[in-house]
């Protein structure tokens, strides 16, 4: 019975990502010591490829200026990490999240909050997690206490219930995975913000809009997209990190479904740009994803990647 796939098949079948810069070494400590990288001005967006999500994350954040540029010493940091599901390609790579926590701690963060906790054996899937038990244990998980926020510039969404940790922390990191979504076709940094809202009433309003009896999965894509764009007016992230290691290309957002292995991590402070870049991992163009244009119209960032300085790095 043909019922199995090898890692090699995943890799050879995955999307190819252009590499214009090579950085030697495989340990994150070597990146920090890389003089040539330090001499280069920070990129507006960095995409790093290698099989190591942890190392990719360290290198990507370093390339956009280092975590100290986004997280100040003694600050509180809220991390909205997409850890809601369990299937492959539907949640962030634990190595990527671990690297993010380490970078925040190294930058001097006083406390770190996750909007949602991790499920099941999330950390057991990361070999490096055992090296950072204190770090993982130090991270707090939001109590999911919601505050009602008025959204003055919202087109479809005028009010939302939002996790108070996202509103109150000194810094906000949007840490998500690039993947398929049955409604939006793509979910990335912009869509991930919904993770800071409760199902009822906010997310339910996003999903069903004015069509509560429709048998379509997401009956009004325009409404959903506009709500997502509007929600992001509440607070822009200081930094977005997009996992494109192993990603779901069908049956998103929760899966299981078909997978691709771009083996990349992307970092940018611009949440529109990171999504405009990230859609390529699903073979899409930014123009095909309405929320990108809607968010750009709100002034949340740019979909014009020529304006922000993209650096693509292949780790040796």
């Amino acid at each position: 019975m043909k019922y199995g796939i090898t890692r090699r098949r995943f890799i050879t079948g995955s999307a190819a990502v252009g590499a214009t810069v090579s950085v030697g070494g495989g340990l994150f400590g070597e990146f920090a010591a890389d003089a040539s990288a330090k001499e280069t001005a920070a990129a507006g967006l960095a995409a790093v490829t290698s099989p190591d999500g942890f190392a990719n994350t360290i290198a990507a954040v370093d390339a956009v200026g280092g975590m100290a540029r986004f997280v100040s010493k003694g600050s509180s940091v809220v991390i909205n990490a997409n850890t809601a599901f369990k299937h492959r390609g539907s949640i962030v790579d634990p190595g990527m999240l671990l690297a993010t926590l380490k970078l925040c701690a190294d930058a001097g963060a006083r406390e770190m909050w996750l909007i949602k906790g991790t499920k099941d054996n999330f950390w057991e899937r990361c070999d490096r997690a055992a090296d950072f038990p204190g770090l993982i244990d130090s991270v707090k998980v939001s109590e999911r206490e919601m505050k009602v926020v008025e959204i003055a510039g919202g087109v479809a969404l005028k009010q939302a219930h939002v996790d108070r940790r996202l509103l109150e922390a000194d810094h906000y990191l949007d840490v998500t995975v690039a993947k398929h979504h049955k409604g939006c076709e793509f979910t990335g940094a912009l869509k991930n913000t919904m993770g800071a809202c409760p199902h009822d009433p906010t997310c339910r309003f996003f999903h069903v809009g004015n069509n509560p009896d429709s048998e379509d999965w997401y009956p009004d894509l325009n409404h959903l997209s506009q709500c997502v764009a509007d929600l992001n007016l509440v607070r822009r992230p200081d930094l977005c990190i997009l996992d494109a290691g192993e990603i779901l290309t069908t049956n998103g957002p929760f899966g299981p479904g078909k997978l691709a292995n771009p083996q990349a991590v992307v970092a940018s402070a611009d949440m529109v740009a990171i999504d405009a870049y990230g859609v390529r991992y699903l073979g899409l163009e930014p123009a095909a994803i309405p929320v990108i244009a809607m968010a750009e119209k709100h002034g949340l960032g740019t979909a014009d990647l020529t304006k922000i300085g993209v650096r693509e790095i292949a780790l040796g």
Partner: protein
Amino acid sequence: MRILRVSIRSAAAVCVLLAVIQCADKPVVNPQPPGISAAAVEINGWHQEYDPEIFVGDSLFELINGGAEVYHRFGFVQALATQYADDAGRSISLEVFEMKDVEGAGSIYSDKTGGSGQPLQIGDESAGEDYYLNFRSGRFLVTITGFDSEPETTEGILLLAHAVAAQLGGVS
């Protein structure tokens, strides 16, 4: 709707308690059918990593997020989720969705499989993919997923699928 998320043991304890209260002065003639909890089977070489969780009402959103809206429209009753592991550290996820009727389960099955996958002769209809499979047995929809694509994991998925199908085949 009030969110209710309870373990199988807790739910079973409540059911037993209610049954005792309601039937204190009369004998139990027809025991309850095994229901969705019967899907959390034991299989050789694999153990359950934690107690199965039951999702009813809006707690389904904790399991599948926005997709839960559609499940509700198609007559969602309850879901069970648990995870198995073998001694080598491989893991398999089991999700069972109980729908109100066969039509609702069939609609969700069709959407999840998209008409693709390898037929496996499990339940009433089934489809195997690279690292997971879906099958429908009556008004139950079952998704079993591996966290890797190793042959041992695939074998475990199939073993579990047959065992769950055998259990659910007796539930109407």
